[in-house]
C-alpha cells in the first residue's frame, strides 16, 4: 500500500475510534506532542500504558481472588488505572474504571469481579485497535512517509 493511502487509512481509524468513544480528545493531545523529530512518541507511551495496565490487571485479579479482599488496595489500583487510561485517551477504559470504583465503594467482591472483567474487556479492545494502528504507523514510516499530525489530512 502506498504511503498516501496508508496515511488516509490512519486518519480514518482514528476518526472512527473517536466517534465510537474508544478514544477521546486526550489522544489528540498526545498526537500534538508527536512530531517528526519524535515520530513514535505516542506509540511508545501507549505501549508503556499497555504494559503497565497488564500488570495492574494482574494485581487486581490477585487481590480479588484473596479470601479477604482488600478493597482499599483495589481502589488504589483502579484509581491509578483511571488516571493512566485517561491520560492516553482510552475513554472506555476510563469509564469502566469509574464504574469499578463506585462498586468498590460498596465493597462487593462479586461486583468488583464483574467490573474487573469489564475493564479487561475494554482494555483489550483498545489495545488491539491501537496495536494495529501502530503497526500501520511503522509501515508508513518505513515507507518513508510520516504519521499525520492531525486529522485534517
Amino acid at each position, binding site marked *: 500500500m502506498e504511503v498516501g493511502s496508508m496515511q488516509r487509512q490512519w486518519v480514518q481509524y482514528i476518526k472512527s475510534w473517536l466517534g465510537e468513544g474508544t478514544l477521546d480528545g486526550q489522544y489528540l493531545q498526545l498526537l500534538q506532542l508527536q512530531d517528526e523529530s519524535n515520530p513514535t512518541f505516542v506509540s511508545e507511551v501507549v505501549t508503556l500504558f499497555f504494559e503497565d495496565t497488564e500488570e495492574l490487571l494482574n494485581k487486581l485479579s490477585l487481590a480479588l481472588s484473596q479470601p479477604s479482599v482488600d478493597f482499599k488496595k483495589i481502589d488504589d489500583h483502579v484509581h491509578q488505572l483511571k*488516571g493512566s487510561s485517561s491520560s492516553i485517551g482510552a475513554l472506555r477504559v476510563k469509564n469502566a474504571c469509574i464504574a469499578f470504583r463506585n462498586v468498590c465503594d460498596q465493597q462487593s467482591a462479586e461486583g468488583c469481579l464483574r467490573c474487573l472483567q469489564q475493564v479487561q474487556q475494554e482494555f483489550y479492545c483498545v489495545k488491539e485497535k491501537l496495536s494495529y494502528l501502530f503497526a500501520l504507523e511503522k509501515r508508513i514510516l518505513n515507507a518513508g512517509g510520516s504519521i499525520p499530525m492531525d486529522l485534517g489530512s
Partner: protein
Amino acid sequence: MALFCLWGYLSLWGMDPSHTKGTMPTSTSISARKAADMGCDQFPAGLRVLVVDDDPTCLRILEKMLQNCCYAVTKCNRAEIALSMLRENKNGFDIVLSDVHMPDMDGFKLLEQVGLEMDLPVIMMSADDGKNVVMKGVIHGACDYLIKPVRIEALKNIWQHVVRKRKSEWKDLEQSGSMDDGDRDQNVSEGANYSSSAYDGSWNSSKRKRDAEEELEERDDTSALKKPRVVWSVELHQQFVIAVDQLGIDKAVPKKILELMNVPGLSRENVASHLQKYRLYLRRLSGVSPHPSNLNNSFMNPQDHPPFGSMASSYNGIDLQTLLVTGQLSPQSLAALQATGLRRPTAKSSLPMALVDQNNIFSFENPKLRFGEDQTQHLNNTKPVSLFHGIPTKMEPKQLANMQHPSVQTQRNMNMNMNMNMNMALNIKSEHGGTQLMHLSQQQTVGQTLNNSNVTHLPGIPSTLRNLIISGSVTTGNGTADNSHGPRYNLVSPTSVMVNYPMSQTTEVFQEEMNSNLKVSSGVMSSYGVFSDLHMQKSHDWDSQNVSTLAFGTPHHGNFIHHSFDISPSSLIHHGFPSSQTNGENHNSSVNGKTNFSFLDSTQPGIPQSVDHNSFFDPGEVKNQIIPDASYQTDLLSEDFGQDELLGVFLKQEQQEDNGSVDFSGYQTENICV
C-alpha cells in the same frame, strides 16, 4: 511590569544540561535541545520543573508535555527520591508537580515538606476531582491543582506560579528595604516573545493584572533582582529547630532565632517565614482533636491567662485551618496555640478560628457557599501557610471590615500611644468587655479570632456563616459559644510577652476569614517593631522572604499580606485586606488603591453594636471591603505610611462611625474615642 522584570531573572535560570537529578535520568539536556529546536529561548523557557508521579504512563506524558513547553524537566516516580533530589540540589528547581496518590508518600505530605524546606511552588495533580481532595490541596498550600488528564495548555501556564512567588518575595524584600529597585527590564517585549497562544493568553491576563497593580508596581519593581532564595536544607533546618528549642517555642522570635543560628547570609525575614511554616507544621503534627473544654477554660478565664487568639497568628490560623480541614478542630489548636503562647504575634494571625471553622464547614457542609466556589479560585495559593487561601473571598469584606475596623481603632490607639498594645479583640462581648480588653490589649496583634458569640448579631453575615461561626466556635470551641459573650478570643498576651514579640512577629491583625463577628482589635506592639515585622511577613507564601505583615482578610491564594507594623497604624488598617501577593486576580473585592481605609468611607453610620465596646465594625458595614491586592497592600504598609496617615485614618474613622461601634476601652491608651 514585574512580570518582565522577572523575565530577566528567570531567564537567568537557564537550562543546565549538566544538571543531573538524582536517580532518574535527567531530561534536562534533552529538553534543552528540544527547546532550542523549538525556538524556546524566551521566558519562561528553561523553567526547571520536577514532576513526580508513580504512574509511568502519566509521568512520561507529563515529561513530554513539559518539554514541549520548553521547560527543563526532571521526572521522578517516587516522592522520597524527589525530596532527596530537592535537598541535594537546592535551588535546582523552580517548581514541583506532584501526583496526589502515590504509594510511598502521600502527595500532600510531599507538598508540605517541599513548602517547609524548600519553599517552592507545588502543583498537585490527580485523576480525582472531588472537591474535598482539591480543598485539601489548597489547604496544604498547593499553588494549583490540576485534574488528570492534564492538558498541555494547563502546563504551559505553570510558570505563573513561579513568577508570582518571586514577585511576592521581591516585594517583601523591597519592603524590608533590603533591595533596591532593579532596573526595569522593559525590554521584554510585551508579547513579542511569546509565540504560543497559550503564552499569549497567560501573558495577557498577567498583563491585565499588572495594569491593575500599576501603581504598586513601582515599588515592587525589583526587576533584575535575583533574590537568592533561601533553601532550608536539612542542616539549616536542624539549626533552626535547635535554636527554637533553646528559646522555647513561646519565645522563639525570628530575631533571636537568627542570632542563635548565626548563619551568615540568613535574614530575619527568612527565619520569620520559616518559623511560620514550622509552627504550622508543628500544629499539624500535634494532630489534636478538639478539646472544647480546654478552650473554654482558657477563654473564659482571661484573668488566669489571657487566652490567646488562636486565630491570631496567621500561623495559628493556618494551622487551625489545616486542622479543621483535616477534621481536627481548631479548638484544639486554639488550646495549643494558647499553650504555645499565641501571645506572640505570629506572623499570620490572620485566620481566626472562626474562619477555619468556616472553612471546614464550608468545605464539607456547605458546598453552596461561596466559599466553596471560591475554593477553586484559590488553588493558586502558594503556601501551606495560607490556609486561608481556600477561604472564600467573598466573605472577606465583611470580615475584613471587622478586622479593619478594629485595627483602625487600634491604630488610633497606637498612634496615640506607641506603647499601647492593641489587641485584637474579637467579639469581645460587653459583658466582659472592659476587662477582657484589658487583657487583650496586652497582646500583640495577632489574628485572633475571635469569638463568635456575636455572630448572630452581625447582620452582614450570612446566616450560614453565622452558624458556622457559632458552631465553629473555632476560637473557643466551646459549647458556650452560642451564648456566652465572654471574651472568647484568643487575644491577649501578657504584656511581657509582647515585649518579646515585637517586631518580628507579624501580627495578624485580621484574619481575612474571620467572620465578621470578630472584632479584631489589633494589638500592636507599641513600637513599630511589630509593624515592621508584620510587614515582613508575607503570609502569602510563607516565603523565606517573609516580611512580617499582618495577614488580613481574605486569603487570596492564601496570600496574606502581612503588613509590618513598623509603620504606623495605617499598616494596621491595611490589615484585613487579603493579601494576595500575586495580583489581584482572585480578589473579589475591589481593591482600594492606596488606602485601605476605603472601608472607612463606606462604613455605615449605624454600626451595629453587636458587641461591646470592643466590638468592631460589623462586617455588614463595610461594603466591599476589599482586600487589596497583596502588592497593593505591601505598598501600603511600606514605611511610607507614617503615623500621621494612620492617625488620619483613625480620625476619619471616628468621624464616620457611630461611636460605640468601636470601643477602645480595652486599650490601654485612653485616646481612643469611641
